[in-house]
C-alpha cells in the first residue's frame, strides 16, 4: 500500500493552499486532515457564497469544488469563476455520468473526480493540476491514466505524483504502449515501434523490459493492472485506470 506517499510532502506542494467547497462538512474535514498530512493547507467552505467570499479575501493555489452545492450549481459556479480567475479547479461529483466529465472540463474545470474517491487519487490529481499550472503550456504533453502520468516532454513517468525510475528504452516502450492504450499489441508490433530507439547496453527481450516497467509503475507487479499480458498474443496498456 502506498499510504506513505500521503505523509511525504514534497517541495512543490509544501505550501499549496487549497479551498474545498463542499457542503458535506464531515467529508471536507476528513479530506482536510488527509491532505494536511500530505503538506497541503486546506480551507473549507460549506456553500458557494462562502467560497466566493474566501476567494476574494485570500489567494488559493487550487480549488476542490463539489458539483452539488446547497446554494448553487457547481457547474455554474465554475463557469462564473473562470471569467475572472484561472485558479486550477478539481470538480467533485457523485453523479458519475460520463456527460458530467465532458461538461465539467468544457466549463473550465481542470480535472474531475467521482465520489466515492480514493484520497490518494485526489492528492495525485491535485498535485498534477498544481504542477501543470506551474509548468504552463509545456505540461500539455503529459498523458494521464488515473494515478499514472507519462510526461512525454520530460520523458518521466510518475505514479501518485512521484517519479518512477525506468530507463530511457523502457520509457519508449511504455510510451509506445500508452499511445495505443486499449489495443492489443503483439511483441513484433512493439519491436517495430521501437526500431528507432537506441538499444540498452544489454539487449533483453521485451518481456524482461515489461517486467521492469511493471515493477516501477504497478501497485502489485504480480497482478498487473496497467500493462497486461495476453498469453500468445501480446500486451495491452489499460486505457481506463480510474478505478
Amino acid at each position, binding site marked *: 500500500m502506498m499510504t506513505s506517499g500521503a505523509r511525504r510532502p514534497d517541495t512543490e506542494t509544501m505550501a499549496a493552499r487549497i479551498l474545498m467547497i463542499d457542503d*458535506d462538512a464531515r*467529508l471536507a474535514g476528513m479530506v482536510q486532515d488527509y491532505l494536511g498530512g500530505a503538506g497541503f493547507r486546506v480551507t473549507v467552505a460549506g456553500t458557494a457564497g462562502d467560497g466566493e467570499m474566501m476567494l476574494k479575501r485570500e489567494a488559493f493555489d487550487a480549488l476542490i469544488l463539489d458539483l452539488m452545492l446547497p446554494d448553487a450549481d457547481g457547474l455554474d459556479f465554475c463557469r462564473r469563476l473562470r471569467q475572472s480567475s484561472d485558479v486550477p479547479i478539481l470538480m467533485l461529483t457523485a453523479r458519475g455520468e*460520463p456527460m458530467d466529465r465532458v461538461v465539467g472540463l468544457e466549463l473550465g474545470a481542470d480535472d474531475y473526480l467521482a*465520489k*466515492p474517491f480514493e*484520497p490518494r487519487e485526489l492528492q495525485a490529481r491535485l498535485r498534477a493540476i498544481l504542477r501543470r499550472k506551474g509548468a504552463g503550456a509545456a505540461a500539455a504533453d503529459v498523458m494521464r491514466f488515473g494515478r499514472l502520468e507519462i510526461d512525454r516532454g520530460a520523458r518521466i513517468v510518475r505514479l501518485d505524483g512521484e517519479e518512477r525510475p525506468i530507463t530511457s528504452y523502457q520509457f519508449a516502450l511504455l510510451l509506445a504502449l500508452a499511445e495505443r492504450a486499449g489495443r492489443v499489441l503483439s511483441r513484433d508490433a512493439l519491436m517495430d515501434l521501437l526500431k528507432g530507439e537506441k538499444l540498452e547496453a544489454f539487449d533483453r527481450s521485451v518481456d524482461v523490459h515489461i517486467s521492469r516497467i511493471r515493477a516501477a509503475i504497478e501497485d502489485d507487479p504480480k497482478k498487473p493492472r496497467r500493462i*497486461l499480458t495476453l498469453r500468445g498474443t501480446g500486451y495491452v496498456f489499460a*486505457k481506463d485506470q480510474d478505478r
Partner: protein
Amino acid sequence: MNRLYLQFYVTILVVLAVFVGAAVLLWRLADDDNRTPQYLDVAAELTGALLPDRDAPRQDQQRAIEILQRKLRFDIALYEPDGDMIAMAGKPPPRFNPKRARTGWQRGPGGPNFTLELPDGRWLVARQVRERPNPAFWIAAALGLVALAVAVAAYPVVRGLGRRLERLKAGVEQLGGGDLSARVKVEGRDEVAALAASFNRSAQRIEELVAAHRLLLANASHELRTPLARISVAASLLGEQADAKTRDSLKRDVAELDQLIEQILLASRLEAIPTLEQREPVDLLALAAEEASHYDLGDGEVEGQPVTVSGDRLLLRRLIRNLIENAHRYGGEGPITVRVTRDAGRAVLEVSDRGPGVPESERRRIFEPFYRLTGGSETGRGSGLGLALVLDIARRHGGDAVCLPAEGGGSRFRVDLPVA
C-alpha cells in the same frame, strides 16, 4: 386496403354507385308500368275516320291534319301508300318506310309513334309531343353529376381526416420510441383534435414524471455516494493503525456499493435512451483483459484474438465486467476463462466458469431483471440487474447474449456482436 381515408372514400363511392343504380332501376320499372294509355288508340282511329278522302285536294288534307294537330297536341304526318308525304303538322317525323310499317305503337328515337294504315291505303303517323327528348338520360346524368360532386367534395374531407390521424400516429410512435418531447398539432375542434390534445397532455405528464424520476435517481445517487465517499476517505485515514485486512475489506464493500448504485443508475438511464449515444472502435480482447485484471480468475485467463467492434466503450466495459462479476459470484472457486474470437463476421465473447451451471429451463430467464435462480443461495447476491444489463447492452450493439452449458460443467455466457 389499410389506409383509413381510402376505406372511408371507397365506402362513400360505393354508396353513391348503389344509389345511382337503384334510382335508374326504379325509373325503368316505373316507365314499364306507364304503358301508352288506351285513349291514344281510340284517338288515332277516330282521327283516321275524320280525315278527308284520298282524292280530296292536298290543301284540305293539310288543313285537316293541322286542326287535328292543334286539338290533340300530336305531331301528325299523312303518307301515300308508297310512302310520299301528303301532309304534316308539328315537328317533322323521322323517315317513313311503308314496307316496314305496320299498324300500332312503336318505340322510336323521338318517343312512341302510333302508325295507322287507313282503309284506302294511306298511312297516318302520330307522335306525342314531348317537352324533353329522353328523361331517363337526364335523370341519370343528374344523378351522375351529384355523385361526382359528392365524390369530389368528400375526398379532401376524408383525406384530411386521414392525414390528421396519420400525424397523430407519428406522434404516438415518436413518444413510444423514447422521444418524450414529442407533441402533435391540435387542429380543429372535433374528436381527432380532442384526441390530439389528450395525447399532448399525456405526453407532457410522462415527460414530467420521467424527468422527476431521473432527478430523483440523480439525487439518490448523490445522497448515497456522499456517505460512501466519507467511508472511503475514512478507511484511508485509518492508515497503518488499522489492520490491512479490515481496511481492504472496507474498501471492497465501498466499491461494491458504488457499483450497485452505478448499475441501478445505468439501468434507468438506458431505459430512457433507446439507442447508443456514442460509438468508437473498441478492441474487445484488450477491454476484456483490462476488466479481468481487476478480478482473480483462478487458473483461468483471458485468451483469443484481437477483434475490433464499434460501440460505446463504457457500456461494453460494463457488459464484460458484469459477466466476469457474475462468473465470480456464482461460478464457485474454479477458474474463469474469458475468450474473444471472431466467428463468421461476428465478434464472440465467452465467459466460462466451473460452477454448478444453470438448468436449461432457466437459461433464458436469468437475463430478466431481478430474476434469481431457484434454490440459489442468499449469499453473494448482486444487484439482480447484471445480466439484464448484459443483454440490453449486447442488443443495443446489434448483438445478443445467451447462456450455454460449458464443456466439463459450469456455465458459458456467450455474447456476439457485429464486427466493426
